[in-house]
């Protein structure tokens, strides 16, 4: 912004419009009649502080507008990262919604010890049935198991050659619909393992549960990816602010020489970081909105053909709000980080 202070270049000031340090007083008549009450000075200072902040906020906005090309490039890169992040977030949200209404039942098979008799097994099945997390139990006796085996496997002759029936009694447990979460199932399994009659417990997860587990994995991957994307956003903002810092080095030095605190010097850069985050959030939001609009009809048509009532989810109002807050905070944090590192290096005391 500041050109060659020391070089004494006699170029006319930049083509941009005048950027007043402060609202020009010529537009406001001086109010000499104003009387100051006790404590008024503190109030004045506070008002001046607010005014300064408001003013600086828009001055830093103006600076971005003054260099539209480089600002847009930076915002575009930031928006790309943010777009990726929300897209993944929405994919997860939509997939979760997909499995929400789906009911598929898991099944637990209890293989009993060889010495357990049918009668005893039946009693055990009845006992298990009393568990509120269990919807239904069924028992496959040794004989029944053998019949099934003979019918479905090709080893009939080999099996018949055996003297005794090697197949165990199996109790099949269908968990109640209230107990479909992996954690609840795990609890049931642990319970069943404690029965002395039980040899082995096998969980046969329903496909919806499998899908859910898969989505959970995907969700974690997205989480990790989002952290990387956020780090990328921080770095891009930090590097942009760093360039700005170097461009305005002379100005910063002058301000320091006449008593500016670090806070005063930091402020415009923090605001720039805020604007960068904020505008890239807007851009990313629009890109994602367009994508969702484009995909909405095809997806919902497809879902209709399969009798589904799937509605493509977009960011809700609170989510949009949070997204904007997060993006702006990233902007502020990124510039704050680099200021913390560079301000001391740039201007050695």
């Amino acid at each position: 912004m500041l050109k060659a202070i020391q070089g004494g270049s006699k170029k006319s000031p930049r083509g941009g419009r005048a950027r007043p340090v402060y609202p020009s007083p010529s537009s406001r008549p001086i109010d000499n009649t104003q009387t100051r009450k006790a404590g008024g000075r503190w109030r004045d200072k506070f008002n001046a502080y607010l005014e300064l902040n408001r003013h600086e906020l828009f001055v830093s906005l103006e600076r971005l507008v003054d260099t539209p090309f480089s600002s847009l490039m930076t915002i575009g890169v930031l928006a790309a990262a943010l777009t990726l992040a929300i897209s993944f977030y929405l994919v997860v949200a939509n997939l979760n919604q997909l499995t929400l209404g789906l009911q598929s039942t898991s099944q637990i098979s209890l293989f009993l010890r060889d010495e357990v008799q049918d009668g005893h097994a039946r009693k055990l099945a009845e006992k298990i049935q009393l568990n509120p997390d269990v919807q239904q139990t069924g028992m496959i006796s040794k004989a029944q198991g053998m019949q099934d085996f003979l019918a479905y496997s090709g080893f009939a002759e080999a099996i018949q050659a055996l003297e005794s029936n090697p197949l165990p009694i199996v109790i099949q447990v269908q968990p109640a619909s209230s107990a479909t979460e992996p954690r609840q199932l795990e609890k049931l399994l642990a319970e069943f393992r404690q029965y002395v009659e039980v040899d082995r417990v096998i969980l046969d997860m329903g496909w919806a549960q499998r899908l859910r587990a898969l989505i959970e994995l995907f969700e974690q991957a997205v989480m990790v990816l989002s952290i990387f994307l956020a780090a990328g956003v921080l770095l891009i903002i930090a590097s942009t602010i760093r360039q700005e810092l170097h461009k305005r080095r002379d100005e910063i030095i002058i301000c320091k020489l006449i008593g500016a605190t670090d806070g005063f010097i930091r402020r415009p850069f923090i605001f720039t970081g805020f604007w960068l985050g904020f505008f890239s959030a807007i851009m990313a939001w629009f890109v994602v909105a367009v994508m969702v609009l484009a995909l909405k009809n095809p997806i919902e048509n497809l879902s209709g053909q399969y009798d589904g009532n799937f509605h493509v989810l977009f960011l809700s109002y609170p989510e949009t709000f949070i997204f904007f807050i997060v993006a702006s905070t990233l902007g502020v944090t990124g510039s704050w980080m680099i200021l913390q590192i560079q301000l001391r290096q740039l201007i050695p005391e």
Partner: protein
Amino acid sequence: MLKFEHVSKRYPEAGEVLRNINFSLDHGEMAFLTGHSGAGKSTLLRLIAVIERCSRGHIWLDGASVNDAKTGQIPVLRRKIGLIFQDYKLLHDRTVFDNVALPLVIAGYGHQEIGRRVRAALDKVGLLGKENKYPVTLSGGEQQRVGIARAVVNKPPMILADEPTGNLDPELSSEIMKLFEQFQQVGVTILIATHDISLISKMNYRVLKLAQGELTSD
């Protein structure tokens, strides 16, 4: 107001630029600091404003130790000093008004107070009416006066001026000096670095003379 005790400053590249400097200025005193080019005048002023730290000795400003000022206290210390630079150090993308207003903005004044004080300061240096110009459209002397207005606008108890008349014709120079005298009369302590001997001799003020980094006469 200002006190130097056995102050030395050495640069790794240039060696000992100031050697065992001792002097003090009372409240409301005005003094000139002279010496050949490279004698260390600017360096001495820089030590007071903590732009540099002295290598040895002790500096006191307004009862407070400059040596012990922590980084966080430097801004407060500098607001007690109106600095006038050899190379003006104006912000070239801001108007004259905004340049002069900067110390007040930094100190957190409201816009009414700022407007009044800036105009008063510009009036003093004879630049009223040029508020909306940019520094590059002004002559060297005018820029120098903008720098002076900026230094006095916050009514600091001390003014340090580095060659404040370097770019002014004799007539303007003596006007600026009269201005400094006016400040001195209201109790401001002023230290002016200059090698304009004729200017000094015309005025009857204390002269601190530096030669090869030592204070040779007081």
